[in-house]
């Protein structure tokens, strides 16, 4: 079945305000701020920014069921030049050590290679959140070599090492195509010991349940990917599915929304608060607005109004240090169980 974006099918949930209203209307046993307070955090504040996450836009060659961006081939949002330049300026002027590039499929952006080259020339660590299949398309055939030449860390999505589960979440044929991409990356040295080329995999549960222990899964994945397909990688990150965009739509349609949200609330783990990514990451949207994380970006919940609100304003401001993080019911996704972030579990 061909998948479509919420926007393309004119689904009301394409609008962030509708998503927020649905989440706020759920009769949860406690609010996120209430849960934080019970863990001794009256206000969740930002610390020093260590990661600049750049969302280059919503265009993607895939249309995955769980996508919180509602990305797809029909999306037209692409980061304009002035926002790209302002972001690179901030990266250059600040002490932020890592540039985390995401999308959509960020490699589709016409300036993707320019961004990577310039950030690496500044001595910054660069991460590419890659869907793998993009590297198998003819126009992007030389992408793996480019990434290797610039020592870019690849963070690649693969929900399962079994074909059926991966294809169910990401589309028919995605597993085979992802496997071809992984083999090519391995051939270049990615994921191989001693090369310095880092290939990390990301798995999201295929359904309305929490991820398993990251450590236990990593062991299985390393064994099974090597045994079945002769594929190697460095780390496995488990990420909890967030009740946003297409995953929210699926939760509603399948009758799982209330139970899933209750599960997240019930699994609130105070030990995850210290490592929440919103405390050290700033997320730049395709249009230059600033957010505490990519999830807030998709729910249209910008950073606290008292600080800089766009990347252009941030260029003239020192940092967002100590501003409160903007929160909502979706934040329970990052505090459930072992915690969740763009770098996987936050307690392990």
């Amino acid at each position, binding site marked *: 079945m061909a998948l479509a974006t919420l926007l393309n099918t004119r689904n009301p949930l394409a609008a962030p305000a509708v998503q927020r209203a649905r989440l706020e209307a759920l009769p949860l046993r406690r609010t996120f701020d209430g849960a934080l307070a019970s863990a001794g955090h009256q206000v969740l504040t930002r610390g020093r920014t260590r990661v600049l996450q750049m969302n280059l836009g919503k265009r993607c060659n895939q249309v995955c069921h769980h996508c919180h961006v509602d990305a797809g081939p029909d999306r037209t949002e692409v980061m304009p030049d002035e926002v790209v330049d302002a972001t690179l300026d901030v990266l250059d002027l600040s002490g932020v050590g890592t540039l985390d590039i995401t999308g959509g499929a960020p490699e589709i952006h016409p300036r993707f290679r320019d961004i990577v080259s310039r950030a690496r020339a500044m001595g910054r660590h660069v991460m590419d959140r890659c869907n793998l299949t993009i590297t198998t398309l003819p126009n992007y055939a030389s992408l793996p070599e480019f990434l290797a030449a610039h020592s870019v860390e690849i963070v690649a999505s693969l929900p*399962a090492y*079994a074909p059926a589960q991966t294809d169910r979440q990401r589309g028919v044929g995605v597993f085979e195509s992802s496997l071809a991409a992984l083999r090519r990356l391995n051939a270049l040295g990615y994921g191989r010991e001693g090369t310095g080329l880092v290939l990390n995999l990301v798995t999201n*549960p295929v*359904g309305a*349940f929490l*991820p*398993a*222990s990251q450590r236990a899964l990593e062991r299985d994945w390393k064994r099974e990917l090597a045994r079945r397909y002769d594929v190697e990688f460095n780390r496995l990150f488990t990420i909890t599915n967030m009740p946003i965009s297409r995953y929210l739509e699926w939760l509603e349609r399948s009758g799982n929304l209330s139970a899933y949200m209750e599960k997240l609330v019930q699994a609130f783990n105070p030990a995850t608060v210290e490592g929440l990514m919103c405390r050290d990451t700033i997320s730049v949207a395709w249009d230059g607005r600033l957010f505490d994380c990519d999830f807030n970006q998709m729910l249209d919940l910008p950073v606290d109004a008292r600080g800089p609100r766009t990347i252009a304003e941030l260029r003239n401001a020192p940092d967002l240090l100590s501003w409160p993080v903007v929160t909502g019911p979706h934040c329970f996704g990052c505090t459930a169980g072992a915690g969740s972030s763009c770098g996987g579990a936050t307690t392990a």
Partner: protein
Amino acid sequence: MDTYYHPPDLAKFPDVGKDAPELWDRFLGWYTAVFAEGALTEREKALIALAVAHAVQCPYCIDAYTSGSLEKGATPDQMTEAVHVAAAIRGGATLVHAVQMRNKIEKIGM
């Protein structure tokens, strides 16, 4: 309530402790210890629980340990194999009683 088994009742399981809290606390402490990682992993224990849930035909347990197995990283094929183990034991347990039948045939037959 028009059925004996009602899905929202699973969340009311702790209410069983209201009239015998000490027994409930002992049960819960033991239950938690049983499912903690030990000589068997948490995933192996969840798969055993899933198989037993099918053998004792407890809908609440099937519900809980389907989610539980997935959240411990079990795959649908592993879970299905676990249920087949339960089914094989149930089937085998029926069939092995045929020995008793055969003994009786021998005893009362000529």
